[in-house]
């Protein structure tokens, strides 16, 4: 079989394939995944997510376990969204030799549920003193924080109202609420923002009626030393809903995780399928071609591999050897290649009897030449179909191994996201946006290849075709 014949055969195959609607749909899904991979850098809100997925400090400004933003659309109580106020009004002043910098942020609050946290961030160094004050639409002004900070080597100032102004908020509430109520509050369980964004009245601790309008947050930084510098102040509103797919309980953006997982799933699936199906096809053809004693020996070896309970062995090997993603792919290939062998062998048995094989043998063609030039090309369409069918399996196996916490810790895969979800009790807490998207992605990718593979299979087995 010449290359040109092969090309013709493939183009004929494509002509047939085009007619199968489900196959085209599968290809479309596959293309969609590819596009998402190509544009991943542009789509990632958190560019370092691939390397710092497990680095909690990278995600600290995100809300915790926040549902996706679009859930607001379906709920009667609108949750505050997350945003960053980056260009505040800046004012430098000098008061009695002390340099001061004043940042004024204006935040329009138009939600029913207040943000989880309000974080003031700045860069610089030294030991500045920071005063944070808060002016509400009703004119009330609260001094939230007055504290000295040591910026240290990181040169980063981060002040969280959620952490640092609990007492101030309770203090504010006690101006309206009865003492018996405020006294019983456990400060560690109070989110100050819930008080700060509620109408100031009796019963506010309990009913928390949102006070909508313009809030002014003023951060005054006092440089206490000569060389204290503070710059690039910004205010991060950590909402109650976040991004496309929300966040997990480690504050990680799930959309980023799911997006970053695509390439790994595809890589694992395709690489495993290509290697193992190629191995299996070659093995089956050689076994059929050689026949006799060698066929028996090869089939015995094959039988041993077939008798291995795949997933348990993969789990144990992963637990014992702690593989990287590449070793895991290799391990899967060691067991996956048996899949196509039986079918390939019986197909090759038929091909072997064809006259042109006999003819080329008579002409003195070498075994290798006959196998690789004359027999294997005939099996290429079948190989493609099997590859497509094996891809979902490989993806699911990797996900399962990852679910047990045995995945490669240097990458982000869907299985790992689900593993974290399971271990953090996302199921029990109903954090569906943590559980559904990664699993759905696995299912969708599996579906894409199932559609492609089944369509190919249909073309290859016309007997089962429906008229």
């Amino acid at each position: 079989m010449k290359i040109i014949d092969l090309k013709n055969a493939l183009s004929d195959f494509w002509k047939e394939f085009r007619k199968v609607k489900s196959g085209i749909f599968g290809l479309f899904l596959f293309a969609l995944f590819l596009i998402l991979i190509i544009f991943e850098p542009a789509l990632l809100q958190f560019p370092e997510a691939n390397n710092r997925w497990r680095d909690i400090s990278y995600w600290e400004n995100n809300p915790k376990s926040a549902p996706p933003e679009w859930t607001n659309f379906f709920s009667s109580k609108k949750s505050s969204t997350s945003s960053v106020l980056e260009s505040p009004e800046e004012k430098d002043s000098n008061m009695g030799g002390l340099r001061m910098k004043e940042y004024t942020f204006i935040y329009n609050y138009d939600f029913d549920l207040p943000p989880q946290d309000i974080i003031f961030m700045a860069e610089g160094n030294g030991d500045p003193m920071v005063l944070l004050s808060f002016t509400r639409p009703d004119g009330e002004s609260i001094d939230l924080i007055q504290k000295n900070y040591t910026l240290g080597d990181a040169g980063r100032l981060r002040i969280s109202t959620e952490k640092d102004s609990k007492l101030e908020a309770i203090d504010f509430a006690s101006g309206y609420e009865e003492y018996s109520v405020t006294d019983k509050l456990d400060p560690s369980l109070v989110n100050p923002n819930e008080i700060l964004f509620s109408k100031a009245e009796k019963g506010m601790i309990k009913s928390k009626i949102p006070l909508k309008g313009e809030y002014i947050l003023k951060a005054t930084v006092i440089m206490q030393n000569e060389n204290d510098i503070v710059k690039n102040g910004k205010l991060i509103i950590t909402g109650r809903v976040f991004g496309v797919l929300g966040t997990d309980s480690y504050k990680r953006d799930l959309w980023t995780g799911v997006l970053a997982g695509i390439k790994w799933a595809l890589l694992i699936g395709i690489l495993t399928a290509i290697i193992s199906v190629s191995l299996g096809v070659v093995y089956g053809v050689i076994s059929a071609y050689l026949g006799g004693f060698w066929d028996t020996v090869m089939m015995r070896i094959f039988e041993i591999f077939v008798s291995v309970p795949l997933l348990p062995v993969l789990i144990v090997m992963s637990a014992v050897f702690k593989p990287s993603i590449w070793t895991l792919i290799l391990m899967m290939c060691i067991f996956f290649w048996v899949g196509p062998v039986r079918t390939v062998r019986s197909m090759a048995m038929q091909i072997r009897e064809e006259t042109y094989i006999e003819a080329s043998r008579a002409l003195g063609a070498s075994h290798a030449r006959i196998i690789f030039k004359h027999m294997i090309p005939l099996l290429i369409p079948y190989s493609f179909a099997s590859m497509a069918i094996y891809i979902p399996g490989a993806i699911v196996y990797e996900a399962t191994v990852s679910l047990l916490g045995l995945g490669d810790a240097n990458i982000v895969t869907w299985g790992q996201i689900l593993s974290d979800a399971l271990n953090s009790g996302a199921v029990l807490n109903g954090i569906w946006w943590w559980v559904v998207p990664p699993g759905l992605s696995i299912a969708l990718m599996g579906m894409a290849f199932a559609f492609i593979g089944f369509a190919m299979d249909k073309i290859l087995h016309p007997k089962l075709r429906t008229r």
Partner: protein
Amino acid sequence: MYGKYVLKRAINGIAIYVILIFIYSILFNVTMEATVRSQIEEVVRAEVMSMSNSTITPAEITRYGERRKLELYTQYKLDKPVGERILFRALNTLTFQYGNSTIIKSSSGSNGVMDIVLEAVPKTLILFSTAMIIDIIIGLWLGIKKAQKPGKTLDKSTSVVTMIVFGMPSWWLGMLMIMFFAYIVKIFPSGGLHSTPAPEGFAYFLDSLYHLTLPVITLVILGFWGRAFLTRNIVLGVLQEDFIMSARARGIPERKVLYGHAMRTAAPPIVTMSLLALLTSVSGNIVFETIFSWTGMGNLYWVSVQQNDVPVLLGNLSFTTGLFISGLVILDLIYGFLDPRIKVGGKA
């Protein structure tokens, strides 16, 4: 004729089992020995500790400890060359002497790995065989329906569903099912084998059934599509055979042609392929148990991975392999029994 076939298959199965156990022993030798060594040290340390408040001098205690350690090393053949150690371990595994666990204990408090594994086996069998039976019944029924009218709406739509669920991990669906049926619509328990405290008598049976329902439903709604698709293809293939046309020409009613001639012929491949698919799906879905806190073998994998309990992990693997191979042999036997070409013999 069939007896010889049975014998041949059984011997073959045992041979494969032995080979696999040897491979495991070679593969996991280093890890297993490290565990045994630390177990020995633990034992010796405990013995030494218990002696320390007696009147023996510290030097003597240390000497005793050293001696005990060597004794135990010899007992576990850790002083022998590596080939002999592997052989020893493989033979132990083959005789189901899996040793002791490091952390996990059976419910009776035993730390023998075999006890722990044996406790898990029936739970796994109950869950998966229940799901299997329902799965096969629905799958067969749907498959025949599909094969009767290939290319029609029912066939096409169910085939699409087959492809949709093709790459869906069962444990993920399990997570969704729990989230939905145990937390949003609270009609099923979120997991476990029975309520705590477990009720007595018939109520216990009902309670177990109730706990079994959600995991079984999950397994079945993922599984039977594939079974139906397979059945359809086999039956459709058989329906195009000459003897079907021949039977129709002889005036045999369609019902008998379909359920008699076609199904009886399709039975050996359907039964074996379904069982094979189920066997691999059991081994592939084994983690699924964890989601439902179903304390079977799959959950045991999970627990032993979390606790890093190597002896339990390896013992469980050896036992699973044994069960898996037994399943394969039984499969062959069923096939041979159903197909007269093997059962009766003669030239095929």
